[in-house]
């Protein structure tokens, strides 16, 4: 018992546990983000999406993962073998490393360094190397062109992204991720609403640049199917391709987490300083959410004709209703409510990115560059100036 206490109280316990959880669970999470993406896109296009594997396609990610792991691993004859092997590792490694400074709740982070936000930007800029090298090492024209496009795009939008972040950093007065959330708690406001709503401008710039930075539609020119087959990962297959895939979804999660931390109050619930709202927001909302998901699943389960699927769906529904009950227990709620709010906001942001993908057509390359250099960067610079002036005036 003492031993257990000692282990739990050790300063390295939370970081190591979180690291293990992130590395172990994120591939699964990424798989389910993909499933959500496919389902949401299908819904937007009035289709059903994956339906066969598991009830309503709920086991599809596992089937996909198995398929990718069992596929033949093809290395092109004329490629630079060592680089070809190493490039996806860079991408995945940097994308997952960025997780180490993300605060999931108060005190729940791998590390709270005083340059947290810079570490994330550093990791994402090293991530570019994975794409560039992968494209070059494949020794294929499509890959090379995809890599060149990607490098130009990422370098361009990184500037706008960093400038948009700068406004938020100015409001917070710190680069530490946890410090930024604490600053919002002290100021009683999410930074997106700060400076009389002027912070909305950098937020919008951030959203657009983040979509471009993660190579997502409508900025997915590096892997534009109609022109470049698949861009930088044309020659990749099987497990290596899965690594790129994992990196892409990890990056999506990271940019969403940064947006949530910097602009949307991180792990704080809405109106974190109004104490009577604790009951509806910390207890009512999650319980109601899980309950509704559970009831919805039960309703879907009744319509399923194949018996195993119906049983599976009923199980999911009952589990969700059980979860709704569990979050109502006060000690559990105290632990769970902060990460719940963080993850639900990240989920909302990820949904927004899927929504954008389903809505906008792909930009042309010159349009992409024009948006980056002639609109995003000047707007972000102007927003910094405006927010600096307003922020200083308000303090004095």
């Amino acid at each position: 018992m003492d031993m257990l206490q000692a282990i739990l109280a050790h300063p390295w316990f939370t970081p190591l546990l979180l690291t293990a959880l992130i590395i172990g669970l994120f591939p699964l999470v990424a798989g389910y983000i993909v499933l959500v993406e496919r389902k949401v896109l299908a819904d937007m296009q009035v289709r059903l999406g994956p339906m066969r594997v598991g009830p309503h396609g709920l086991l599809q990610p596992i089937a996909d993962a198995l398929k990718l792991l069992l596929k033949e691993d093809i290395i092109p004859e004329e490629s630079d073998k060592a680089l070809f092997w190493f490039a996806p590792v860079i991408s995945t490694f940097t994308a997952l490393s960025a997780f180490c400074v993300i605060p999931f709740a108060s005190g729940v982070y791998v590390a709270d360094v005083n340059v947290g936000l810079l570490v994330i930007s550093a990791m994402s800029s090293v991530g570019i190397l994975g794409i560039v090298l992968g494209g070059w090492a494949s020794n294929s024209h499509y890959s090379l062109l995809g890599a060149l496009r990607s490098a130009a795009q990422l370098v361009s939008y990184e500037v706008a992204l960093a400038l948009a972040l700068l406004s938020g950093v100015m409001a917070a007065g710190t680069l530490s991720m946890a410090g930024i959330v604490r600053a919002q708690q002290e100021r009683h406001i999410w930074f997106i609403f700060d400076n009389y709503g002027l912070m909305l401008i950098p937020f919008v710039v951030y959203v657009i640049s983040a979509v471009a930075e993660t190579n997502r539609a409508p900025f997915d020119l590096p892997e534009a199917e109609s022109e470049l087959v698949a861009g930088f990962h044309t020659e990749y297959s099987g497990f290596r391709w899965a690594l790129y895939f994992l990196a892409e979804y990890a990056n999506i999660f990271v940019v969403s987490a940064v947006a949530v931390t910097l602009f949307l109050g991180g792990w704080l619930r809405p109106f974190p300083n109004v104490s009577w709202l604790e009951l509806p927001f910390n207890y009512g909302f999650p319980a109601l959410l899980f309950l509704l998901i559970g009831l919805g699943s039960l309703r879907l389960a009744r319509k399923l004709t194949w018996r195993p699927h119906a049983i599976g769906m009923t199980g999911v529904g009952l589990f969700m209703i059980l979860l709704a009950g569990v979050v109502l227990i006060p000690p559990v709620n105290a632990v769970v409510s902060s990460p719940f709010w963080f993850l639900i906001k990240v989920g909302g942001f990820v949904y927004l990115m899927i929504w954008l993908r389903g809505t906008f057509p792909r930009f042309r390359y010159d349009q992409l560059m024009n948006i980056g250099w002639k609109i995003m960067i000047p707007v972000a610079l102007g927003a910094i100036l405006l927010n600096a002036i307003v922020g200083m005036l308000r303090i004095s």
Partner: protein
Amino acid sequence: MLDTIFFYVFALLTIGGAIATITRRSAMHSALSLIVSLLGVAGLYLLQKAEFLFAVQIVLYIGGIMVLFLFVIMLVNLDQAAKERQFNRQWLLGLVASVLVGAQMVWMLNSAGVLSLPAAVPAPAATGPGNIEALADLLFREYLLPFEVASLLLLVAIVGSVMMAKKTS
């Protein structure tokens, strides 16, 4: 103990990367070795509590400058050059010169008494949690003029490269 190990790891990365940079045939491999070397230097910054420089080194050097290098290497076709002789005609003169530079540095370090410092300098106390505030204070007060000059230099560089890009197209 731990940071002694880290020092040797980063030093190995730095030196190994540097040696590979100047010896590899393919420009792409040279650039990659340089990235490894820069990462090693970034790690050494971290060991010396220069967290800000660590981040800037990675964002600016690896994410900016080295990506530019890779970009240019991909644009110019150097396959032929990689098969040819790698050293220029004055390599003998160069050898003499670099040996001289190395000898001079050893002599200078020695005459400044650095080499005969006691083996274990007592660990200097940390300058507090994070030195970014101190850095910013200094940058925007005492070093304001150099800061502005640096921004002017960047502007000139931007205009210069845009001009160059225009002329060639």
